[in-house]
């Protein structure tokens, strides 16, 4: 049976925790709004890029001349997984669900006899995946210093991936991130970025007109594809940032509610114990008086 003092201490500590979780929830809500508007502002560029690329790719006949970013290396033996997670924890199952999807992917590919390498973006994913796949992780990108994710971060990651691709280190690259559906629902997603997947059917409507290309068609395609890679990563990072804040917000909301429940229970227990003690003392006094 805990003493009254123990109970008082316990209530005080839960109250302190509740204040922290409440504050974190509010901060996450504010950051979520910013992250969401950043993700929305980036959408037109990504859409336009997809459209332009679709137009271009529709006219391209796959041959030895086509850039390998579009046609692939002709093999799919060596895989590169780019796993984007958050830098901080305390956001529910956000990091672990991305890591789980990546882990399932690795296990499946390894089971098929493929060679798998991993690049981690974000510290949390690295921490989780390092336990199991330490020897497969070849690179780690730290975004802790970045307050707001800019295009240059995505571009930097894209450059690193491209260097490895050009050095012939892998054939297929897949990007893992969490798609932001709503505050309570974030969907871990795997998206193949090399060779590029381009919606050819969507482009059909606008591609009737014959375009002139300056300089040549292939030059434009060649410089557009790496850019497209950066854009895809940028979008993934922004979606991830919004998802992270959303996940943190609902996790902290839950934590605050749990703390409230616990405080209520402990307070009832505290009052009961206090009442029992008073009753006990009264009985002692009364029975003492009766004995006289």
């Amino acid at each position, binding site marked *: 049976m805990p003493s009254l003092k123990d109970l008082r201490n316990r209530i005080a500590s839960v109250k302190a925790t509740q204040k922290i979780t409440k504050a974190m929830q509010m901060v996450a809500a504010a950051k979520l709004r910013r992250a969401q508007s950043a993700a929305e502002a980036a959408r*037109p*560029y990504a859409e*336009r890029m997809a459209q332009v690329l679709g137009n271009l790719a529709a006219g391209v006949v796959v041959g030895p001349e086509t850039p390998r970013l579009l046609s692939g290396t002709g093999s799919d033996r060596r895989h590169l997984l780019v796993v984007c997670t958050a830098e901080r924890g305390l956001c529910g199952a956000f990091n672990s669900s991305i890591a789980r999807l990546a882990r399932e992917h690795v296990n499946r590919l390894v089971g098929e006899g493929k060679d798998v390498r991993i690049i981690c973006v974000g510290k949390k994913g690295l921490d989780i995946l390092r336990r199991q796949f330490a020897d497969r992780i070849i690179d780690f990108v730290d975004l802790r210093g970045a307050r707001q994710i800019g295009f240059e971060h995505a571009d930097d990651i894209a450059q690193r991936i491209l260097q490895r691709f050009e050095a012939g280190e892998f054939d297929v690259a897949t990007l893992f991130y969490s798609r932001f559906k709503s505050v309570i629902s974030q969907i871990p997603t795997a998206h193949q970025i090399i060779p590029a997947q381009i919606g050819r059917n969507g482009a059909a409507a606008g591609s009737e007109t*014959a*375009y002139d*290309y300056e300089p040549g068609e292939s030059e434009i395609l060649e410089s557009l594809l790496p850019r497209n890679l950066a854009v895809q990563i940028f979008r993934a990072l922004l979606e991830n940032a919004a998802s992270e804040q959303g996940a943190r917000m609902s996790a902290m909301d839950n934590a605050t509610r749990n703390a409230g429940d616990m405080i209520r229970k402990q307070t009832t227990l505290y009052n009961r114990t206090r009442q029992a003690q008073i009753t006990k003392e009264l009985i002692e006094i009364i029975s003492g008086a009766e004995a006289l």
Partner: protein
Amino acid sequence: MATLHFELVAPERVLYSGAVDAVMLPGTEGDMTVLPGHAPVMTALKTGFIVVTDHRDHGTRVLVRGGFADINAAEVTVLAERALASAELTPQSIDQEILTVEMQRDASHEQSFKDAADATIAQLREARAALQY
């Protein structure tokens, strides 16, 4: 008078969207001015100014660093890799850009990248000089 729908999109945001009379673009094959009814062209852009002429303003300038323009009879869409709007255009902000490119050039080991960066720096210097007028 017919107008063009001009859209300038940078990765982070949309910088300009609206009806314009003419747009001057710094194409890699030379500067070009696009008027309504232009033949469909897809061109890569080098570093330089985009000059927008619309009915309110004459010659709004935006500095872009690399990108693409998708042109057809009714609209022009510029996908800029990096863009500075006219309000942000000062000699200092261009100096900052030059510094960034210089750092990228020094960090790289590939000759082709270094050459490209040198060209960009030269174009940025040019833009900085042009800004005085």
